[in-house]
């Protein structure tokens, strides 16, 4: 068929040539006289002339048709070629868009109709999880998210929305995208869908943030040192650190953290930072004296981009903090003086009256004096506990750590608290090992701990009750337990037991005297002995408070394998 189409013009040309010849002949005949016609032309020639004219016309028509066909064919070919090229280009553009852009098509009410592969890759949802769902699922504040609302308002007005959005992937990670939302309308002008194109700019934003952080680090007054956790070679120091060490940036990168101070003790330093690796503690802090004043050095362990372990040390000037601490201690000291001096007079007066050295009191007066005396004792207890807590918090409480026998300390504590136990009709029982339970601690502070726990146990014991103190070995530690047969600690009170001023009414409803600070002080003092206070309690049965103190190393060799306990 195609060949026929190409032959047709040739045939048409031949017919056209014949037609032109006949036309020429006709032209000649037209200008001939009748005599010339009769002389030159045979009879019937004119009839033939008419036929030839008709034939010529047909030929011309055929030529016109052929030419028109040729033109149509060529046009069609060109059209097909153009369409193919256009389709290829469109396909190419779509591929380019799909490669670079996150594309989604949503209904006017923001329900996903289509998403491209990029969308799935970036947000982590499968297309099945998205189609039919609201786009709001990708915003931190869902339908109430300001960006989500701004887009809806803009496209509803038929305008294109363009801007940056903060969205969330399926895994919860933040994705920053630059977005253009184009509303699409049908021929009737109805808003039928939105085509949204997004570009993931998270990496760029992170890079900006990193750059900003670096700038911030540079401007920090605190000195920042980042160095290899193994070799201690410096990878980064900020401007403040460079200034103190007198380094240029390139000199800093050739240095080690050990070069930061002339008397840097690497062994001590490694011992200081060891808990970051061995115990996974988040930060280790040390205070040091800098030529310009006191400083605090906080060190953390971090993982670099190449999985290298890095230490990050921040050296902070704490002169101001020290001044505040000093001022605080001074104010505590003043309060202490101002409260203790009148208390001396009150307690002293009451004590002299109670003793009878100033004359016998009648029973009614004596009972009132007793009330005043008890309450002045209570007030003093509060003042002392607050002062102790302040001292501990300000690191002003002295701890004279020395080898101690925990058993001797328990025996002494029983003697000291015997009077208080007698007042409440309570008996102390001790169960102690035969050999010394050597620990390292501050005798006075541990006595404070024991007195606190023992007085609590006494206060909560029934009359004629027994408080038992047990010392026993516990895997490299000596454990002291103090058991009472009191009402037990209610479940709801357990979580706040070691918080300041936490006092609850026990099951039996009887309120006991106390400041609500005792157990906080106990916990803090024990912390300085690498020990933690804990308890077991059963309502209606009793309570056992216990703590483990590391056994003193020197005594370890002398200790028998198993400690026998005796009751006294």
């Amino acid at each position, binding site marked *: 068929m195609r060949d026929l189409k190409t032959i047709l013009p040739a045939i048409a040309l031949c017919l056209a040539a014949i037609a032109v010849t006949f036309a020429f002949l006709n032209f000649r005949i037209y200008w001939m006289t009748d005599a010339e016609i009769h002389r030159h032309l045979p009879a019937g020639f004119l009839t033939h002339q008419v036929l030839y004219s008709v034939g010529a016309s047909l030929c011309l028509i055929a030529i016109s048709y052929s030419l028109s066909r040729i033109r149509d064919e060529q046009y069609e070919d060109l059209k097909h070629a153009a369409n193919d090229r256009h389709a290829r280009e469109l396909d190419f553009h779509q591929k380019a868009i799909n490669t670079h852009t996150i594309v989604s098509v949503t209904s006017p009410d923001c329900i996903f109709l289509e998403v491209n592969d990029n969308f799935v890759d970036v947000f982590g949802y499968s297309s099945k999880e998205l189609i039919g769902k609201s786009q709001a699922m990708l915003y931190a504040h869902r339908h109430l998210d300001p960006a989500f609302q701004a887009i809806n308002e803009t496209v509803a007005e038929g305008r294109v929305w363009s801007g940056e959005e903060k969205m969330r992937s399926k895994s919860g990670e933040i994705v920053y995208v630059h977005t253009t939302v184009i509303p699409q309308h049908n021929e009737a002008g109805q808003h039928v869908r939105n085509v949204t194109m997004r570009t993931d700019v998270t990496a760029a934003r992170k890079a900006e943030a990193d750059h900003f952080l670096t700038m911030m680090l540079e401007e920090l007054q605190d000195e920042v040192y980042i160095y290899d956790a193994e070799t201690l070679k410096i990878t980064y120091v900020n401007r403040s650190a460079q200034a103190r060490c007198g380094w240029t940036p390139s000199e800093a990168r050739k240095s080690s953290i050990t070069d930061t101070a002339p008397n840097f003790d690497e062994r001590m330093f490694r011992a200081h930072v060891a808990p970051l690796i061995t115990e996974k503690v988040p930060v280790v802090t040390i205070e040091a004296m800098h030529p310009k004043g006191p400083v605090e050095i906080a060190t953390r362990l971090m993982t670099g981009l190449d999985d290298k372990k890095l230490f990050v040390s921040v050296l902070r000037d704490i002169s101001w903090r020290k001044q505040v601490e000093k001022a605080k*201690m001074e104010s*505590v*000291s003043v309060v*202490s*003086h*101002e*409260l*203790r*001096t*009148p*208390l*001396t*007079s009150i*307690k*002293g*007066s009451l*004590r*002299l009256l109670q*003793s009878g*050295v*100033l004359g016998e009191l009648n029973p009614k007066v004596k009972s009132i004096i007793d009330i005043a005396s008890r309450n002045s004792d209570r007030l*003093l207890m509060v003042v*002392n506990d607050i*002062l102790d807590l302040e*001292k501990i918090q300000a690191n*002003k*409480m*002295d701890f004279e750590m020395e080898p101690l026998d925990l058993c001797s300390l328990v025996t002494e504590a029983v003697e000291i608290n015997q009077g208080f136990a007698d007042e409440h009709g309570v008996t102390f029982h001790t169960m102690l090992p035969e050999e010394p339970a050597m620990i390292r601690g501050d005798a006075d502070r541990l006595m404070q701990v024991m007195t606190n726990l023992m007085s609590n146990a006494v206060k909560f014991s029934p009359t004629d009750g027994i408080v038992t103190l047990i010392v026993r070995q516990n895997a490299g530690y000596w454990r002291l337990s103090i058991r009472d047969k009191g009402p037990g600690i209610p479940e709801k009170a357990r979580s706040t037991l070691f918080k300041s001023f936490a006092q609850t009414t026990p099951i039996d409803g009887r309120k006991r005297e106390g400041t609500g600070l005792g157990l906080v002080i106990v916990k803090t003092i024990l912390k300085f002995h690498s020990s933690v206070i804990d308890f077991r309690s059963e309502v209606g049965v009793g309570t056992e408070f216990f703590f483990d103190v590391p056994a003193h190393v020197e005594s370890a060799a002398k200790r028998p394998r198993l400690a026998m306990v005796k009751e006294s």
Partner: protein
Amino acid sequence: MLEDIPPTPEQSASNKEQDMSLSRILHVDDDEDIRTIVQLALEVVGSFDVMQFSNGHEAVAAAQGFAPQLLLLDVMMPEMSGLDVWKSIIAMPGLSHVPAIFVTAKAEDEFSRGLVTDGALAVITKPFDPMTLAQDVNDIWERAMRKAG
């Protein structure tokens, strides 16, 4: 004219015993109520001869006439602190040996240790028990005397 007769060994022992036993205490405190409590505690509960002053200047002026064996001094006082009073008294002829016990409401261990380092016999913390104060002061005195030989 009587000659100075050297004391017999018995007399020496008796004199020494007299010196060893505490009787005269000079007490300085700016708080009148505390002075009252201390007077009752040392004179009624204990049996000491106590001279009291509300400030350091008066105490220093009267010190030589009273010839105290022991000073009981409040630490924080206006004008002259307890430490200043002690330093002024031991600078006087014949009183250089007089020891001091300080009374303070300050709770810091460091502060108390500093006073003992400066030569104080002891530091008693307020509030003290008036019923045991005399005994406590006497115990501290005797311990110091034994130590001094």
